[in-house]
């Protein structure tokens, strides 16, 4: 039994290596390959670019850490506002819905130009002009629209019998939401939340349009200084190294959480 499994692994490994080697060989011998290689895989340019690019990446990291925290909070507010029952809350529900529709429709670059250049141009007293600030605002407005829908889906996936049980004990609507529904809802939507988080990490490059030298801007600067596209490859690699382990970590966290608490009951 064990022997046959070992054999399968060996075959899988050998075939993978052979497959990749074949692809590699085909690429390397294609016409035009040397120019592609020099343009995109230039080790010298790679070596002199990556330290300064990693430093500029710090801007992106700061941006998404700050924005993500704010998004998780603001999106929850919107999701709750949107779900609050009762006729008196109708205008609030509608406003929340309009907010989501508007910011899901607008391209990020448009929003960032409007907020990053347009608002400071108004010269209103007390209104910040810092591009980083407006990049955070733009990202929070944009992504909260998506994340609030994810929360809403999570909230709606919690069986109404949970709310019924909580309310029957005398808990108010908000209390039931806070102690019973949301803890369950959020756990369920961690994969789509991660999806949006990864999207956010990529969209931090929008700040480059406001002049701030982030990873993308630095890649452009390096590219025009060297006439080589390897800096773009460096940027791509940095993003990959960031997001892929994050995705695997989240998978692991979700699996561990599921093992610890399976969801019970809730038929009626």
């Amino acid at each position, binding site marked *: 039994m064990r022997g046959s*499994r*070992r054999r399968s*692994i060996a075959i*899988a*490994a050998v075939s*993978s*290596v052979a497959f*990749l*080697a074949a*692809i*590699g060989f085909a*690429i*390397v*011998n294609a*016409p*035009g*390959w*040397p*120019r592609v*290689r*020099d343009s995109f*895989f230039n*080790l010298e340019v790679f070596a002199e670019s990556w330290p300064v690019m990693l430093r500029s990446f710090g801007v992106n990291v700061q941006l998404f850490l700050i924005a993500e925290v704010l998004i998780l909070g603001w999106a929850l507010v919107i999701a709750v506002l949107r779900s609050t029952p009762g006729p008196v809350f109708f205008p609030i529900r509608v406003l929340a819905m309009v907010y989501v529709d508007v910011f899901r429709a607008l391209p990020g670059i448009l929003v960032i130009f409007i907020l990053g*250049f347009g608002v*400071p*141009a108004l*010269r209103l007293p007390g209104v910040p*002009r*810092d*591009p980083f600030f407006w990049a955070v605002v733009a990202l929070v407005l944009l992504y909260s629209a998506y994340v609030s829908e994810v929360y809403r889906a999570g909230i709606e996936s919690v069986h109404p019998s949970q709310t019924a049980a909580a309310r029957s004990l005398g808990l108010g609507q908000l209390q039931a939401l806070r102690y019973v529904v949301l803890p369950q809802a959020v756990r369920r939507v961690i994969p789509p939340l991660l999806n949006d988080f990864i999207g956010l990490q990529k969209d931090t490059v929008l700040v*480059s*349009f*406001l*002049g*701030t*030298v982030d990873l993308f*801007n630095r890649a*452009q*600067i390096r*590219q*025009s*200084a*060297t*006439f080589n596209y390897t800096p773009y490859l460096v940027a791509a690699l940095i993003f990959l190294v960031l997001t892929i382990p994050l995705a695997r970590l989240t998978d692991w966290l979700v699996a561990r959480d599921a093992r610890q608490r399976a969801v019970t009951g809730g038929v009626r």
Partner: protein
Amino acid sequence: MRTSTRLAALALLVALVAVFAFIATRPPGVPSPTTGPTSSPAVSPTSAASPSAVADACARDNLETMTAGKLTIGTDNPAFPPYFLPRAGGNTEPWDPAQGDPTTGEGFESAVAYAIADELGFAKEDVTWVVVPFLNAFQPGEKDFDFDINQVTFTEERTAGADLSDGYYFGNQAVVVRADGPFASAKTITELKAAKLGAQVGTTSLATIEEVIQPTQEASVYQSNDDAIEALGNEQIQGIVVDLPTAFFIVNVQTSGNAIVGQIGPDAGADPEHFSVVLEKDSPLTDCVNQAIAALADAGTLEALAEQWLPDKDVPELQP
């Protein structure tokens, strides 16, 4: 993860790394094909060193332009004054109606372009203009113009991807600040070190900031000069660096409330700069264009055109 899966993943990872290393370190095994159309040698069998033969190589009918008998010139859109002036009655397509029209022949670079064309033997009607984004002009690769004229400062690095002609304009970078701002009366580079500066990506203006001024705050880098100007107006940055004629245009025509605080010349330790015309790498036209420029310089035409189209107000040089 089970041991078997872990082993398989490890094997795959090793294979990927090996392939990447292989790819990255292999010297080009296949000779690289030449860029652009196969160009005939610039020196024909009969030309050798005789002056008349060389001059004939630049005769209009011998020039290997993209379209026989026509000259295709490139520049960016919008085409800004004072390099390109607008056409009375509206610009021709596709030139941005708010700025200049290269086909008028008015404006410093429009005039120089037509002067070079004339030297090469092309009449005004034989000249066609194409839009070429600034950075694209001197990137390596095939070009869709015979030459490009777009305030391209000569740098050694840029010759890696294209041919840059001899200079047709010699000038400096300048710094534009808010007239009511904290740097309006700066006289030295040292004073400007404290400023938040900005420039367009990929320009020698940006290089000037980083190498000559070396400010304490990192410079902001914009996709276009317009964005930088916007940011200056919003006081998101305190100064922008652009070439001097552009600085005049920004301050006098395009915006208000800004001022040129000084130009960055040899006093401040900056290398002298000149604008070059851009041609495809190893273009057969390069020698002839250089000859045309030399002729125009000798005749005093370039100086006259600069005097005619570029403001001649004295701008003080910033001291170190």
